[in-house]
């Protein structure tokens, strides 16, 4: 691997890592509050990308407007999922997880008759390349980094500086105590769903001009996000960010050297080794 290729894959890795971080943050946030894993996260990513296809490419709206629309539409969808699936289900976490699985397979399968069998393509929004350290990097991929960073900072400020954010933190600490202090747990859970879905939609919307669109496109990013939160620890925001960057870099560098699929196999083997030799290490003993 030449130096130029290394620089290129490192930068692509950071940009890929930013997408993974947005995915993993939503998952971690929802887990922290409700102890569920949103299996539908990949399907939401896919829907986020298709909103760009229809509003930006077909509808001719500006990309920025389509991006915001994608986040808002799927944020609302997330809130509705909380109302109609998460909230009514009684009897523990397991039925909820299975219901979210069913929602995932439904959205993926319904994608074929609704969006058509053929892969879709979105034309580039930021065409061209920019020279960094003597290496040409596509501007499209570069733009992902500041946008993702802005979203992460916005989320951070929301959680730490607003009253609703404080309510979310209160639920994360102790649901019963939060409810006793007058926090409307349902509404705040709905908000967490909305934020998680909106972040997944943003990831999909950012990737739409780069990858081809098909109903199964969310599966890989979802699995990557799983690996990140196992690495970084469920519920941990710094863990998700660090894990996301690490996996993005490994993915991009190993994928350049070996191909995308072996890179995925390798990261799974890494996870199993980690569980085997440091079962309590990275995320502590379940207590």
């Amino acid at each position, binding site marked *: 691997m030449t130096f130029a290729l290394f620089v290129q894959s490192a930068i692509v890795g950071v940009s890929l890592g930013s997408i993974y971080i947005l995915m993993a943050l939503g998952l971690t946030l929802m887990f922290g509050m409700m102890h569920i894993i949103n299996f539908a996260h990949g399907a939401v990513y896919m829907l986020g990308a298709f909103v760009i296809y229809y509003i930006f490419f077909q509808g001719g709206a500006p990309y920025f407007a389509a991006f915001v629309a994608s986040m808002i539409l799927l944020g609302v969808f997330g809130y509705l999922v909380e109302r109609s699936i998460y909230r009514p289900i009684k009897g523990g976490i397991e039925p909820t997880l*299975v219901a979210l699985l069913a*929602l995932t397979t439904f959205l993926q399968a319904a994608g074929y008759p609704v969006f058509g069998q053929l892969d879709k393509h979105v034309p580039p929004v930021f065409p061209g390349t920019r020279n960094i350290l003597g290496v040409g990097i596509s501007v499209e991929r570069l733009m992902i980094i500041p946008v993702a960073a802005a979203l992460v900072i916005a989320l951070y400020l929301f959680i730490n500086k607003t009253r609703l954010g404080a309510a979310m933190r209160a639920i994360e600490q102790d649901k019963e105590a939060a409810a006793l202090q007058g926090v409307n747990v349902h509404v705040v859970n709905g908000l967490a769903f909305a934020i998680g879905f909106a972040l997944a939609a943003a990831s999909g919307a950012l990737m739409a001009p780069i990858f081809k669109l098909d109903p199964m496109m969310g*599966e890989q990013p979802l699995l990557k996000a799983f690996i990140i939160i196992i690495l970084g620890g469920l519920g941990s925001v710094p863990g998700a960010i660090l894990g996301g960057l690490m996996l993005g870099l490994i993915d991009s560098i190993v994928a350049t050297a070996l191909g995308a699929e072996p890179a995925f196999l390798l990261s799974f083997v890494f996870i199993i080794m980690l569980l*085997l030799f440091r079962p309590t290490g990275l995320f502590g003993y379940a207590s």
Partner: protein
Amino acid sequence: MPRKLGVSIVLAVLVILALLVPELGGDYYVHVFALVFTNVILAASLRPSLTCGQLNIGHSAFMSIGAYTSALLAKNLAVPFEIALLCGALLAAAVGLAIGYPSLRLRGVYFAMVTVAFVEVIRLIAQLWVSLTRGMSGLSGIPKPSLLGMTLTTRASQYYLVVGLAVVILLVLWKLEHSRLGLIWKSIGMGDNLAQSLGVNIARHKLLAFMLGCFFAGTAGAFYAHFIRFLFPPEFGFLMATNILVYNYVGGRGHFVGPILGAIFLSLLSEPFRGSPYETIFFSIAMLLTILFLPGGLITLPGKLAELKRWRAAASPTPSPAA
């Protein structure tokens, strides 16, 4: 004992169906019902793990291991079907041990995530190891099943084979569930901390339940390979794994018969759309409706209906004049 009676009735119905299907229907029905019984094995074999409170969303990976192992042994090394099937099942159980040992110590959601990722790993290995599995071209030319040197050439005879396998496996699983072992599994599912505090080695029992499921999923996979005689990696993906879980939930988690009922009901009803996206749409909707409106699954339906009738009767104690 009513529970025992219920199980005997279901088993009797299964056996009668097995005898009648080739007589009454043509090869098409034999084919469909052979797949139904394969699904019954898959669904029932997931139950021990679910009983222990382990959400395994990767069962199809072990079916895939059994299928490829048995197919390759029989095809490339001319290993007799019975031995190839056993090797497939054993390898599935061994891989189950390798994955289960590190991840079973994890709490529910971590375990679920590892199993989901594992489905993808097995699919990718099958897809990338082209020299062995032929990758995305698919593995064809798998020998038909045979017993004691006699090749089962007709569809009907292969069908009887899978019915026999299903009956044996269901009997074993039923026996286990109603032994002390089954009780221990149930106690782990109801409260793993409490079970531990009373002296149960929960890690060992969870692993045993998981490996047993892998073994039988491998068996089902091996039969499937020699029955369909063509293997294609994406078939054993996330969707099939979810379907196996769906059989259990739609049928009902509370009783041994639940997954069997779920597998028969859903496989038959979805038959018209097999292979199209509408099959998945149907499964997903059935799943969501069940979880939201009939959380105990189909097996609780008669009880619910009786309750409704009683409630109606109580609401209108006097017969209506029209009657």
